[in-house]
Structure formats: C-alpha cells, structure tokens
C-alpha cells in the first residue's frame, strides 16, 4: 500500500500515537512528577508573580500561577486531540450530509445550502466566535435555550459551525460529478430510490475524499482551538490548552520563554503531524492528486 511506503506519513502516525499515549498518560505524568495540572506551587513564582523557568523537578518550568508546564502540556494534548477530532467529526457529519443533499438534489436546496456555506465562509469567524462565546458565557443557563454551556462543548460547536462548509463544498462537488456517473443511472434504472442511491451508491465513493479532507481539517481545527484560546475564548482555565498557555505567555514571553516555547512546539508538531498524515492519505487514496 502506498501509504505504508510514505515514511513521513508513517512517522506522523507514530507521533500522533505517542501524543495519544501522552494524553492518556497525563495523570501518570502528574503522579510521577507529583504535580497536578491545576496544583499551584508558590515557590515557582517570584515576588512579582513571575514564573520560574525549567529546573530539576519542573522540566518545562512553571506558568504565571506556579503550575507545572510539562504536566499541563500533557493534559493540553487531550484538548487539542479532542477538539481536533470531535469538532472535525461534527463538521464532517454536517458537511457530508448537507453536501450530499445539495449535490444530489440540486435546485433550490442546493442553492440554499451552497449559499449558506458561502455566507458562513465570508463571516469573520473570530468575531462570531467572540460573540457566541460571550453570549453563552454571560448567564447561568448558557445559550440556545440552555442547551449550550461555555467550555469544551461550545468550542467544539463553534469550530464545527465554521468548518462544515469546507466539507460540504468538497462533498457537493464530488457528488455533482458522481451523480453524473453512469453507475448512478444504472442504479436508478433498476429502480433504486434516492436514499439508496445517496447512501449505498454515492456515499461509499466519497469515503476517501472525506477521509482526506477530514485528516486535513483536523490540524486546522486544532489550530482554530488554539487561536480561540489565544484570544481568551477557548476552553475554561481549569482545562489546560496549548493555545491558552501561549496566550498566557504573550505578555511575558521575554522573561519566560519556556511558557511560549514548549506549548508552541507541541502545537506545531501536532499540527505538522496531522498535515503530513493528511498529505500521505491523500497521496495514497487519491493517486490523481499526486503532488
């Protein structure tokens, strides 16, 4: 299989595997180091509340509240992975469904879905992220009739809300060409209904496209979460997130480089790994797009 031969993609897979292990083993790291992710160590900040750098028991130093950066990075991997995967999953689910319907049904439904996607894509996303996060965080019951509370779920919803159009557009395009393929007509000629055609005939042919785009969307969404957290709109503080850690560092990066460097490197490597994986999958599953 082509994918196996792609050394970089395999390396990425290994890295992602390690990352998953890191995420799962975060409590273990906390136990070994003896530092909880939200445990405050007074002596790791100085009189001015500035964090202290790496030392023997704090390998990656401490943050402004005296918490262990290494332990928090391990926990942060959870957020990045969860957000990256779940938000992408939700986006793919919405995008595939809408794209399939738009492409297959065409006409007014297609126009409606495609235009909605266009509008969503032309929105300044962060603006709406700010608006939604603020609106949902301002009262006890959250927003959308109390169904949504700020936090990880909201972040995932916001990200999914803004990334489904990419999937929908791709899927729609693929469906448009698949719809014209003779096997669809063949299926219709033997009496298959629309649902059968959509889900039994067309959908299986989209699998590789979907896998490829999902794998390319994952790193984007990991970055998106980091951007939101960087701007103070991400997950709650008790949940360590790499974006938020870098954000915390942004005021004191010149006196606490470790606060910026380590989470940043993890974020970069993770995104890089997913991108490489996506590229590898694309090359393997879609030989036409061999580049």
């Amino acid at each position, binding site marked *: 299989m082509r994918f196996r031969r792609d050394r970089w993609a395999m390396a990425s897979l290994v890295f992602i595997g390690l990352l998953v292990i890191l995420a799962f083993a975060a409590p273990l790291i906390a136990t070994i180091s003896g530092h909880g992710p939200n445990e405050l160590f007074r002596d790791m900040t100085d009189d*001015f509340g500035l964090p202290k750098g790496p030392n023997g028991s704090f390998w990656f130093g401490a943050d402004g509240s005296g918490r262990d950066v290494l332990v928090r990075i391990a926990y942060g991997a959870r957020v990045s992975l969860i957000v990256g995967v779940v938000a992408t999953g939700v986006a793919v689910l919405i995008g595939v469904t809408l794209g399939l319907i738009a492409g297959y049904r065409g006409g007014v439904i297609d126009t409606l879905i495609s235009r909605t996607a266009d509008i969503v894509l032309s929105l300044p996303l962060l603006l709406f992220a700010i608006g939604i996060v603020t609106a949902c*965080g301002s009262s006890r019951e959250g927003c959308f009739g109390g169904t949504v509370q700020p936090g990880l779920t909201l972040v995932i919803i916001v990200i999914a809300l803004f990334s489904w159009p990419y999937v929908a557009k791709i899927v729609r395009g693929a469906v448009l060409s698949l719809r014209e393929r003779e096997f669809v007509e063949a299926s219709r000629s033997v009496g298959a209904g629309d649902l059968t055609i959509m889900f039994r005939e067309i959908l299986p042919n989209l699998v590789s496209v979907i896998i490829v785009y999902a794998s390319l969307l994952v790193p984007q969404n990991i970055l998106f979460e980091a951007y939101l957290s960087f701007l103070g709109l991400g997950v709650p503080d008790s949940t360590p997130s790499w974006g938020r850690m870098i954000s915390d560092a942004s005021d004191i990066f010149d006196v606490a480089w470790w606060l910026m460097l380590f989470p940043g490197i993890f974020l970069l490597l993770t995104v890089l790994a997913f991108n490489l994986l996506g590229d590898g999958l694309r090359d393997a599953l879609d030989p036409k797009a061999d580049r």
Partner: protein
Amino acid sequence: GGDDSGDSDTDGGGDTAAAKGGIYRVGTTDFGFNGGFDPSGEYLGWAWGLYSNLLTRQLTGYRHTEGAAGSEVLPDLAEAIPEATDGGTTWTFKIKKGVKFAPPVNREVTSKDIAYAFERIGTGSVVAQYGFYYNDIVGMAEFKDGKAKTIAGITTPDDSTIVFKTTKPVGDFPFRLAMPATGPFPKEVAGCFTKAGEYGRYLIASGPYMIKGSDALDITSCKTMKPISGFNPTKQLSLVRNPNYDAATDSTERREALPDGFEFIINTNDKDIFDKIEAGEYEDSVDAVPPDVARRYSGDDALKDRLKGNQDDRTNYIYMNLAEAPFDDVNVRKAVNWIMDKDALRKAWGGPFYGEIATHIAPATLYPGSTALDGYDPYATENSAGDLAKAQEAMKASAYDTDKDGVCDADACKDVLFMNRSIDPYVKMTPIIRDALGKIGITVKVRELPTGPAYESSGVIANRIQAGSNAGWGKDYPDASTFMVLFDGRNILPTGNSGYALVGLTAAQAKEFKIDYPKGGVPSVDADIDKCSEEVGNARSDCWAALDKKLMEEVVPWVPYLHVNNTTLLGPAVTKWDYDQFSGEAAYAHVAVDPSKQK
C-alpha cells in the same frame, strides 16, 4: 497608603532643580474615555485628573498631592468654601475674579457658566454618568423631567455669586463640587454639544492648559466649529499653555504648571511604552508598570527611584451573591474569607508593589480622622495565605455542611457560577480562587468574559451569578459613602446593578426581579447608610468605619483582597513628580521635566 512605594513628593530622581519648560509626554495603550472626554459625563479617573490638574477649574479642588493632604477639599474657583446655612441645605459660593476661559472664548468665567454645568447634568442627552450626586439639589428632578426651564435650587444673583439649595443636608457637598461635571462650561460653545460625549472634542479650558489648537476654533456658530486639532481620540491629546490663565488666581500649592505642554500619546504596545520611558522618549505612562519591568527596576538601586507605587483608594474584591445558595449562609461567606489566599491573589497582580492586601471594604484614606480601622483584619491569617482550620470551623457552622466536617457537601456548593474577566491579571487569579474554594468543598464553574460583558452580566440579577472576582471599586471623592452605595438595598436594579452582593435585597424586590428569596432573608444596612450620610467631620468617618466593620463581620458580602496601587515608571528627564490622590494618577499640576534629558 503606599508604603512600598518611594516617597512620592520628592524629585523624580534627577538632581536638576524643577524648572519650567519642556513637554511632558505620557504614553498610554488607550485613552479609555467612557464619556467622550466631555466633563459632564466622563467618569474616568485619569480624565478627572486631566481636568482638575490642567484644564478646568471647579468651585472646589484639591492640592493634587499624595495621601491625606491630597484628599482635603479646598476652594479653587471659589474664593472660599462656605459653611452651609439653613440647617445645612444652602451653600453660597463667591467666584474669583480674573479667571478667563481659554481662547477663542476669552471671557471671564461667571456664575452662569457654573449654573450651566448643572443644566447639562440635568439634560438627559448629555448622559451625566455621575449626575446622581446632584439629585439632592432643589428642582433638579423637575428640570430633568422638563417640567422646569431652570433648576430652582441654583441661583446666580450676580456674575460672581452662586447659591445652591439642597432638599436635605448633604455633608459632603463641597466634595461633590470638585467633580469635573460642575466646572464652568461656556454655553456659547458647550451649548452646541448636548449629545453624550460630543463636547469632549471642543473642550474650552479654564485652567493653566488648553487643548492645542483650541484657539483656532471658529465659534461664530455651532456649524462652523470643527473638532480641536490637538485631540485625536485614537492617537494623541496635546495640551499647551492657556494664554488666558492667570497664575495669580491660583496657587502653586494646587498647580505649579511647570511644563510648557503635555502630550498624551496612544501607543498600543505596552512593552514599547516602557521601553520608551526607559530610553527617555516618554516621561510617564497611564498604564500600570508590568511586573517584569517592576522587578528589574526595583532590583536596581540606580533605577529604583523611578518606580512609583501609590495607593489608589481602590478595593478589589470577590463578591458573593447573598440571594443565592450557598452564599445565602453567612458562615459559608465567612469560610470563604478565611480560606482565600490573598497573598497569592496579590501575586497574580505582581506582588506587594501592586498594592496592600485589603482587610476591609473601603481603603483607610476614606476615613480621615478615624482610627477605628487601624490594624483591623477580622480574617487575619498567616501571611494572608488563608487558614484552612478557621475556614472549616466556619463552614461547620453552615447548614450546607451536613456532616460537619468543615467541607461543604451540599449540592449548592457544586458548580458555583463564578464570574471573572478574561484579561490579565484576573485570569491569573482564577486557579487560585478555584484552588482555595475547592478546599472547603466549593467547586466553581468559572466564566471568563471581557471586562465590559463581565460587568454587564454580573449586573443582571436574572443571570444569577453566584460569585465573582471581576469587580473592583474606587472612590469618586474621598468619602466612604462612595463605597457604601454598593450596599444600599434601594440601589439594587434588575439590570445595571453594581452591588453584586445584593445586600439589602427585600423579598418584594426578589419577586420583582423573578429570583428566589432566601429563607433566612438578606441582611440590610440601609439604616446605617442613612445615618452616616448626614454626619460631618470625624463623626462621619467613625460612622462609616463602624459600618465597614459591620459589613466585614456580620454581613460578609465580599472578600476584599487588594487595595490596588497606581504604579508608575518615570523617565530620566522627570525632575519633579507627585501623585494625585484625587484622580489616582500622576499629579500633572506638579510635574516637571528637564528637556535636555529628553529624547
């Protein structure tokens, strides 16, 4: 206050004698005006400092210096502060002669210009944000409602006399007259601008400085007036000497007016501002000194003197909502006071340089002449780091600790909705608060919102925020009453409420706001407030101090944790600097620069 700071009224580190001349440059990331710089509505302390130090003169004023001396009210435009007559309800002021408005108005300030200031306060569209201080003037309500063309309680028998009548004795009336909204407004200019904030760009000075370019204002009609060039709200505010200012009508005790001009420059990069101050490109900043800069300067004897930290008469506190479980139980509130690591909270702000740990509601400076609060700390713990044993003891007394182990076990203590801001240093306090509360069984669900939305959200009662650390309060003038308004049950509003603890909430109000009223009721201090309001002098201070103690021990609506300092770094060219206790910023009226050291 401010004993960690260098002594404030010494020279700014240079040995050159303070001299006239030079331009004093101040960097700021943002002006932050909330009333468009129109004194009628502007409610920003720093802006008040600009008016009072440099631009406008009110009937009364201050010395613009640090500490108690700076909190004493003095006559400014008025020749003297009169005694109130008619049982404390009539105040007759004589205005000094020879005080002129800056160009292009160029005429003498009269009592009509003061009276007009009050008309503006009473004009809804101007949005006088602190107009409520003048609601006790006779006829103000009628004027506001449009039922009267003039304010009955303000009369100007002649150009140099103005008489105020109040509906009840107002002990702190002279303080209220020192606020910029009451300063003289030339109606020929200000009358053109009666929408909120508009006048800010046409401000006509009566003090030693004016906005650069104000002499070019064409005042022949409202239409011909174009914003004064020296003020660009997103870039710069430049002040030059007011040629019509006659120092003889003023005193150097109040204003020395040494530099030839001021420049307040927006520079959005905080780090760059302090780099520039270090390099001598700015003299001063409005923004707080970042902890890393403070650390560097305070560790260097040569630079130490340029670092200033001054008590700002502000209290930062964690509030608890008395109408919401578990904080409807005073024992829980006490336990929270006991457990909170105030030292760690202060560290989040940058450590001791950034203020004194608060042990009661209003800063001690607001109780002039009273010693009642000296050394007062009802929840004293070692290093102010919190005391688990005492906290658990308090918690045991609460109904929410059913098994009496000192850890709250009721559902009410789970997922407590806790409001905070999403900016530094507030975000850095979140883990500390979470950690502390966790020890007594209270788990919090923290909402971090930008400053504005956080306030707005806390101010909506229906949002039922249970507690929060997004709050801080500063005085308007040196009187404890300006803090106690937060505990006046009659001030509680369904939205826009500022007393987040809801002290004094009545069952009727609760019904009106559609929230549950706690079984045990909510304590009220309304009567205490009414009593103290009428007092004057030391008795007034003692009265407020007693109320402060009562709040801390019996009502316990807050965990006050920090009296925040105003922190300043001075440039190498500053030869004289003082702190203005009134505005909580530099006393621009008393600063001086040495142009030869400027870059």
